[in-house]
């Protein structure tokens, strides 16, 4: 007994030492950062402090004003280079450089998001396993989490390789731009690299320690390691986000793009935090989609019932997690858009009502598709429960409601038009359709869709169970009435919007959204409490789900991927002809914005390349546990600087 305890203690010590060692360089790097430039808390330093700082140093240092924070700082960097079209600033292959970079970036991003999202799932699922009282269930959860991390491990090395390819593509095709960006971010570059190393190390200990650390205290330690892993991963992503944040809404530099010595300003730009939140949620939804597709693939290729049951269950869990993060995503998107408008109204208009407006129409369609697929999956999933049949006949009404909501949601309001078209239509709005495409109606549409999804989910939860609590009757009636009035309220607010002036109307979306969220939270909670000790009509027969449902999962996954590509494209192209918005101009021959069709084709190509390659990763995963995982290289693999070619 004593030896085991000692062993455990030793293991704990060894582990802490390792993690400590991994994090040491990062910690050590931070003071260096602080001396290189003050990194004060959010909100920026008080201007007088900055001024005093300047006064102390010699008189001859040049000072300039931050473009965003408006504080004064000592110029400590070169201005953004003025590029000219030619092989010096824009060397190229016989192809559009931007498309190559687009491809490299998107692939790295797909894999990166996947690799960052899966450990979060692992954490959640492992935790569920640890706290589960049911031994068999606990083991099942644990196995699932292990399966997840196994998939992500191969993807992890691919992410690193793609990161390397991305850097090389940048260096070969956009040397001036990349040079400028890395000069701005120099103070945190090594932190980025070290965080990456720490992430790799933790991931490996986490993965290989799984079997060794499966009991008692060690299990908790293992679980806490997943937390550390996710913290490191999130920091890594935040740092990566600061680059794109800087490109869209630069700060910490003066008008000529000269670095002003405060790296926190450079990182903490106007759009950084909204982007961070949006990306975390997006990654989770995306990760859920990928894992669900993996499960669907294994389900469809399963040879026996046992396998089918396992992968049906896995697909269900992954889908639920993905959708759980999909629901708050539009609100995060709303915040991001609001910040965009606050930062530059022009940018917001380009997005929502100008050049890129059609892409948002596609996005609206895709959101509708995502919710329709989710609903379809849930309805199909009723089929694997005995007792689910009693809900089947209502589904057609659901479809009707969903389709109505969808049609309202995708009706466009104002469009970019040529003056001739404008004249033909007698105004910017279509004489008939224009009335339906206004925001208050659209919000009504999407909220109806989400509320219906909530209702589907509640029915799904009840599929094989009958509430047995004493107040079940009241509960049912209350739930019915509450949903009814939720619909009434949403639709009423949508109609009411037509009768009041625009400045009052914009506020209506908030109670509308609150109504939807009320049904989500209250009704799910009510349902769960009603189902406590519920009468089982029959067991959930995992694996009995229809084959079609699995295609719904694949649809979800593909649509997630596509939408991610689309939104990424929108976010990136809103800068129009700026490398760094209003600081560094894009003078390459590709500074124009492509047509919607070209973008759609490009996104499709990216999506398909990602799926073909990740299918390969899945396939590698099925080769069995005997195969040792691929060695992870440092972020810069020794490959010839050949840009990735995907076509």
């Amino acid at each position: 007994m004593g030896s085991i305890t000692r062993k455990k203690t030793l293991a704990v010590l060894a582990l802490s030492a390792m993690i400590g060692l991994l994090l040491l360089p990062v910690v050590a790097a931070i003071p260096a950062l602080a001396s290189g430039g003050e990194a004060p808390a959010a909100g920026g330093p008080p201007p007088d402090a900055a001024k005093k700082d300047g006064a102390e140093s010699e008189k001859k240092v040049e000072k300039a004003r931050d473009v965003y924070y408006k504080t004064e700082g000592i110029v400590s960097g070169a201005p953004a280079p003025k590029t000219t079209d030619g092989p010096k600033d824009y060397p190229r292959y016989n192809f559009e450089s931007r498309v190559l970079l687009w491809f490299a970036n998107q692939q790295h991003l797909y894999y990166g998001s996947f690799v960052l999202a899966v450990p979060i799932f692992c954490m959640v699922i492992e935790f569920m396993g640890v706290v589960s009282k049911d031994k068999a269930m606990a083991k099942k959860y644990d196995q699932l989490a292990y399966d997840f991390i196994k998939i992500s491990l191969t993807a992890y090395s691919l992410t690193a390789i793609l990161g390397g390819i991305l850097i090389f593509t940048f260096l070969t095709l956009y040397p001036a731009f990349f040079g400028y960006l890395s000069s701005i971010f120099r103070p945190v570059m090594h932190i980025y690299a070290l965080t990456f190393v720490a992430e790799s190390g933790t991931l490996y200990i986490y993965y290989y320690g799984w079997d060794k650390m499966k009991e008692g205290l060690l299990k908790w330690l293992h679980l806490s390691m997943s937390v550390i892993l996710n913290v490191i991963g999130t920091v890594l992503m935040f740092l990566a986000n600061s680059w794109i944040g800087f490109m869209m809404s630069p700060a910490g530099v003066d008008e000529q793009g000269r670095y002003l010595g405060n790296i926190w300003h450079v990182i903490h730009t106007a759009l950084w935090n909204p982007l961070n939140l949006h990306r975390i949620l997006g990654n989770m939804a995306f990760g859920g989609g990928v894992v669900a597709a993996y499960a669907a693939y294994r389900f469809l290729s399963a040879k026996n019932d046992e396998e089918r049951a396992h992968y049906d269950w896995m697909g269900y869990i992954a889908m639920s997690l993905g959708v759980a993060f999909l629901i708050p995503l539009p609100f995060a998107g709303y915040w991001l858009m609001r910040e965009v408008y606050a930062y530059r109204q022009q940018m917001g208009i380009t997005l929502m009502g100008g050049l890129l407006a059609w892409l948002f129409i596609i996005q609206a369609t895709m959101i509708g598709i995502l919710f329709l697929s989710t609903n379809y999956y849930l309805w199909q999933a009723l089929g694997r429960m005995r007792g689910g049949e009693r809900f089947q006949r209502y589904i057609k009404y659901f479809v009707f409601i969903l389709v109505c909501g969808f049609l309202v949601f995708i009706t466009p309001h104002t469009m970019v038009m040529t003056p001739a078209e404008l004249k033909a239509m007698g105004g910017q709005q279509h004489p008939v359709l224009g009335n339906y495409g206004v925001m208050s109606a659209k919000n009504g549409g999407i909220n109806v869709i989400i509320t219906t999804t909530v209702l589907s989910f509640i029915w799904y939860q009840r599929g094989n169970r009958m509430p047995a609590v004493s107040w079940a009757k009241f509960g049912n009636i209350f739930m019915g009435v509450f949903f009814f009035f939720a619909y009434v309220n949403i639709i009423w607010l949508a109609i009411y919007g037509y009768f009041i002036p625009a400045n009052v109307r914009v506020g209506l979306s908030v109670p509308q959204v609150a109504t939807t969220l009320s049904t989500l939270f209250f009704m799910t909670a009510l349902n769960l409490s009603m189902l406590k000790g519920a009468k089982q009509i029959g067991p959930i027969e995992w694996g009995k789900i229809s084959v079609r449902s699995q295609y719904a999962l694949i649809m979800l996954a593909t649509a997630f991927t596509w939408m991610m590509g689309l939104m990424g494209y929108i976010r990136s192209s809103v800068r129009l002809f700026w490398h760094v918005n209003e600081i560094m101009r894009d003078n390459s021959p590709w500074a124009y914005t492509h047509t919607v069709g070209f973008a759609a084709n490009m996104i499709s190509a990216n999506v398909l390349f990602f799926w073909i390659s990740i299918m390969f990763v899945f396939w590698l995963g099925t080769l069995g546990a005997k195969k040792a995982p691929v060695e992870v290289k440092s972020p810069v693999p020794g490959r010839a600087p050949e840009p990735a070619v995907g076509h």
Partner: protein
Amino acid sequence: MGKTIMYVVVSVVISVAYFTLVDHFLMDMQGLDYWYLFRK
């Protein structure tokens, strides 16, 4: 039967009151008047 009617009535009252409060206060929070049309 009487019980059912009572349940329905109670539910309706709670739901309507709840959503009205949501509408009113969430508009109020933004400094807007939910009852705009009716006061006009």
